[in-house]
């Protein structure tokens, strides 16, 4: 059962990573405009990129 010594911390570490990632995304405003984000992906932006 010695593998549990590193399996359990690994599992919890991964969970913690997910939690931190979520809190970071919340803080950086990624949930501020959910409708907009869903729609923006449909926008046609296949025009050549103009260097500005």
């Amino acid at each position, binding site marked *: 059962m010695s593998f549990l010594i590193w399996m*359990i911390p690994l599992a919890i570490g991964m969970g913690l990573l997910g939690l931190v990632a979520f809190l970071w995304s*919340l803080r950086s405003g990624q949930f501020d405009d959910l409708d*907009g984000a869903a729609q923006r992906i449909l926008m046609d932006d296949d025009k050549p990129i103009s260097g500005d």
Partner: protein
Amino acid sequence: MAALDASAYVSDTQADPRAFVRHSEGLAHLDLLVRGASCAGCIARIEGGLREDERVEQARLNLSTGRLALSWRGDDAAARDFIAKLNSIGYPATPYEPEADSDPQREEERRLLRAMAVAGFAMANVMLLSVSVWSGGLEMTETMQSLMHRISALIVLPAVAYSGQPFFRSAWRALRVGHVNMDVPISLAVFLACGLSIYETFIGHGAAYYDAAVMLLFFLLIGRFLDMRLRAKASQAARGLAAMQAATANRLLPDGAVKAVPAREVIAGDHLVLAAGDRVPVDATVIDGRSALDGSLVSGETEPVAAEPGTQLFSGMLNLDGKLVIEATADRDNSLLAEITRLVEAGEQSRSRYVRLADRAAKLYVPFVHTLAALTLIGWFIVAGEPRPAIINAIAVLIITCPCALGLAVPAVQVVASGRLYGEGVLVKSGDAMERLAQIDTVVFDKTGTLTEGRPRLVNEHEIDPRSLDVAAQLARTSRHPLSRAIADAAGMGIAAHDVTETPGGGIEGYVEGRRARFGSAQWLGIQTTANPFSEAWLQIEDEEAVRFRFQDRLREDAAETIHGFKTRGAEVFLLSGDRREPVAAIAAELGIVSWQGELKPQDKIERLQALKAEGRKVAMIGDGINDAPALAAADVSISLASAAEISQAAADFVLQADRLKSSVFALDISRGAKQRVIENFATSVVYNIIAVPIAVFGYVTPLIAAIAMSGSSVLVILNALRLARRR
């Protein structure tokens, strides 16, 4: 047609955007509230359209809130061009005054979301450990079990300390003033479950309930978050309305120049210029000019008020035709509008005394559960003769009866119900508004703008030959006067006359097909008539015989259906109006309303409502005018329309977005359905407790049973709530 009118209204009452421009780092910034944006194409058109302008540095639309953040280089005056540009591509925009300090509600929502994330993380990871303890059974050594419990404690205790705060705080607040609410048993169960588990982990070496404690918090946080979202959505709409009120005034400086200032900066004694189409920003007296003003939102009167030097004006009136110079007699905080706001606040305070269904359930539930736990403690102490099993079983009773399902029972139903109402164009401001609407037995209607359309309509179109109507329409399209609007509406789209001059209080004249045409009041045209000057107008083309146009404020198409709908659902209907008695009587007779009153001031309406409430009735008020706002707040529950005055929409619990009056009947049906579901959910919880409590009392609860019972009852409650989303 309604949408078109709404946009016309917005551009009419447009506040001067320059008053709201901010500066930083050499850029000018402005927040705009854009209406009508709902898709990717809209984003592309709005942002792309603005970026075409070289001055624009950044334009970003938040589709969820409808707010557009705009920054540009250069003059403040460019703001007007940007708004005009947005208007021209079909998205009316108004300046949005950003809140002074950070929004507390938003902060609260963030906090709940973070608490939920932490509880979710802890629950998932502790389950990992708990499941292995449950299924490990005899194979697992006691040392290993103890290790698992210790790791669980390490995860759960900080998580509970963080995520449980919303409940602990609320429970503490309630206990301090000698009340109980749902959060009291929740907090107690969480505390005891953690306490017992710590004891068992480190001293007793028995079963631990870490997973139950954190699962309880996670489920309850979901309920709390749903409730919060619902309120946030409503208050967002209310803040949109507040932004519409971000009015400006045009101050006349001593040197004759005119400067736009925010209306709240106006002080008594200021001279202001009021152009046609502007709203009166503060109470004032006319010192120069003549015009007619629409006071229908202020007093409920349909007829425009004639203004000349010396006339007293009230804030909220709309200037219809001429340019006026007015002297402010009060600043914004002492104007009629502010007075009405105070009456509204007083009404809202009385409404906050309403006790929510969930809190009423808590009042019954808490003493019952706690007595049961105490009896279990005493019973086991007598039977077993030692304290440990007695304490463990008493705590098990508290954990298993913890109102997890009750915490979800109400918010889950309310979110589903408000979602359905939203789909029908009905905006709900708060969850308990639906509870209050479900119990009404009396409905009080306002007349002008609620049962009627609130503006004159041409009623004798069949008597007028199409050529005369066309000529009148060409003149009318140049004017903002309500009668001109009515003609333009009746005739539809078309060309406008040129070289038109408008005489305030008289009429309009111009050239149509080379001939001089005049359209206006009988008096102005020199025609003898006794009729009311605001219910008819005449058209004279050169020396031909004058043609008469008659107007009337028409009933909404669905008014009769709505009244009938409420009556068949067992509600008595009253009509209270600020308008003169004759038109009120006519409308009441047409709709078959027996109880009606006219010529009521805002204060009279409140007194009438309170008299009805004193009879033990549960009163719903449906109204739209500024004069209705205090009555809306004083009623048990209130409904307003999207075309209503901002303050009325802010005071109402429900806003009918599409201006369909009969949606109010639909709202009643949904609210009654929601109440039914809530009661069913409570019943489910009771049944669950009848099964689970004996198991706990007799000491058969294991952590596994606690976990299954808790999640099982929550899922059942949510499934029942979802039934409401199904259309019958």
